[in-house]
């Protein structure tokens, strides 16, 4: 799941080497949280106008999570 998000983010940004994904656990329901960090000038490239890119990224991660039968959320951090 982490590798999937890394691939997507690295393919969209200008500075792929600064893409960082960390796995955390949501204390509320023990589900997986993927924390995505990118170079500050690349934030727009993973969020998009009105969050359109972020929504598309979450949709794909959600599909992968459904296949693996787990719950995953994506947080974009600055």
């Amino acid at each position, binding site marked *: 799941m982490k*590798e999937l998000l890394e*691939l997507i983010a690295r393919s969209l940004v200008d500075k792929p080497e600064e893409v960082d994904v960390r796995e955390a656990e949501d204390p509320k329901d023990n589900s997986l949280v993927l924390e995505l960090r990118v170079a500050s000038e690349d934030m727009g490239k993973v969020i998009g106008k009105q969050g359109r*890119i972020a*929504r598309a990224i979450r949709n794909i991660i959600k599909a992968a999570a459904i*296949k693996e039968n787990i719950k995953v959320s994506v947080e974009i951090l600055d």
Partner: protein
Amino acid sequence: MEKSTAAKTATAKLSEKTGRTVQEAIELALEELNVTEDMADIEILDEGSKGIFGLGGKSAKVRATLKEAVSCGKSGACDTDDFEERGSLSRGAASALDFLLGILERMSVDAAIDVTEDEESVMFSISGADAGIIIGRRGETLDSLQYLTGLVVNREGDSFKRVLIDIENYRKKREETLIRLADRLADRVVSGRKSITLEPMNPYERRIIHASLQKNEKIRTYSIGEEPNRKVVISIK
């Protein structure tokens, strides 16, 4: 139109050869494609003839076409190094193909991708198992994948290319379903003289509905609401 298949394919996809006999022509064609007979479709273009006393004979001519899309390995990983036709794709399309293959592999989805590219657009046709996962509810996942792939294709270079992704003919089937639905609802609007509001759809699907009912003079169509909950309304004229 350039066509490439993300699977092991030889560079030449088609070979036409002439020989003294049909069998000889087939052997020459297969040799050029570097495959065995079961990997190609053979078409006999000319059976040839022996002629009299070895004079005036016609050579036999055959065409061997490589069979399409050998699927990827069990892991879902395509051996892209063997993808010799990659060279015919634009840089944007090639990196988008890598992007898609990478996503499918990381989702553990076995699939083959067929790419068709021209000046204005790139079409990726995915075939394989788990289509439902890639399509998602109302095609939501497929649309997201198409949107992100479009960003990858158009990342560099100033010319814009439209990107389409289809899987197991989903788009075509969906279009047919929507046109049937539109026709049925239009009839109901006319007979009941009451407007009908459809379920939320993306712009592409709404366009299919509008276009398919444009010629119907008894009704008109328009959209209401905001994305992603924008809906088509069919009403009496």
